[in-house]
């Protein structure tokens, strides 16, 4: 390979290497290119690793959370089982009326669950309609 210093006003020879006007030797140019290549390769692998972590993170997140609180309803009810006995008769009614909360949410839970199931059915029908895109044929 011949290095031509056309356009460079003062080529020098130092330590056996050709030196440009900008004092950039052939070796330095190669070094700079290699540095850029290394940098780009590292950026590529970092990005790949980041994308993989994003994907696996989505799958792992629920399993990381679940064991901490497997059944929130039960945890709530366990916490509620710590009884504070009222000091006065006036407080008794209030404490006993709290029981009603258990029954008042029963129908709400039924409704929510039924609607979830109905929506699942609706979604599965909707999915069929998106099996194709007629505009892309």
């Amino acid at each position, binding site marked *: *390979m011949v290095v*031509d*210093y*056309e*356009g*460079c006003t003062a080529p020098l020879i130092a330590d056996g290497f050709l030196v*440009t*006007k*900008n004092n950039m030797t052939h070796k330095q*140019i190669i070094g700079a*290119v290699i540095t*850029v*290549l290394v940098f*780009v390769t590292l*950026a*590529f692998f970092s*990005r*790949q690793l980041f994308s993989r972590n994003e994907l696996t993170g989505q799958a792992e997140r629920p399993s990381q959370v679940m064991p901490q609180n497997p059944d929130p309803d*039960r945890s709530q*009810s366990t916490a*509620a089982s710590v*009884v504070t*006995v*009222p000091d006065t*008769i*006036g407080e*008794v*009614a209030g404490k*006993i*009326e709290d*029981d*009603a909360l*258990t*029954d008042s949410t*029963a*129908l*709400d*839970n*039924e*409704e929510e*669950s*039924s*609607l979830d*199931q*109905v*929506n*699942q*059915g*609706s979604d*599965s*029908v909707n*999915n*069929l*309609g998106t*099996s*194709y895109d*007629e*505009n*892309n*044929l």
Partner: protein
Amino acid sequence: MKITCKRGASLFGFFLLVLPMMALATAVPVENRQVVTEAKKAGMPATQQETFCSRFNDRAKVIATTLAERKGQFDRYKNNQTSTREEGRSNRDALLEDQRSEDDQKRSEIYTTLGTKVTTEAEKSAVADFESTVEKAVGVRQAVVDDTVAAFRRSVDTAVAGRKNETESAVEKFQSAVKEATAKAQSSCNAGTDPALVRSTFRSSLEANRFVLKTDRGAAEKVGMQVKSLAETRRVTIKKALDDFRTTVKVAQEKLKKVFGEVSTP
């Protein structure tokens, strides 16, 4: 090969600009690149029309596979619908039972505490009356809630069953219509019909089928509205039961206060 100073600098600059772009382009997921390619294709209707028949087999396979996969999902939902619903109900019943047991325990401790305050026979009798009245009211409240929830479940079952056949037949009709349109397009292609005409007819059929499915799908959404309406109606019954319970407990408490000489706060 000659490398001049300027060329060397230009080469370096070129690498600096192009390589990161190449690296990022490689990092873009394959699916995204396919989407871009598809979008480009969509912008070339003339080419698409000309090559429609030659590409048809592949297209038809993709549509058939996706449709079969999604029909499978619908079938799984349909087949497991009843068992999933029953399983959810059993779980909620068990949870309600657990919570009620805890509430029983709490009330029992309250009665015990009241018992420790008793100093006369009248107070003892008043506490016993209070306990009896409250327990009876709790029983009535729970029975009303249980009956209401059971009635709600029956209504939901009826509503779902009423729309089940409509939804299933809509899905079957859609699947058959897509298969029929595909077969017709294939046949037209084989017969040498103008690919542009075959494509246009096929697209119109698919579009119409989707519209019919969307309309039929409204049946499932009607069930959702029915469920909300049923819950609203039943909620009135539950509210009355809870109000009655609170009133009974309040009255019993006032009686107890009088016996114990505790002053009521307004």
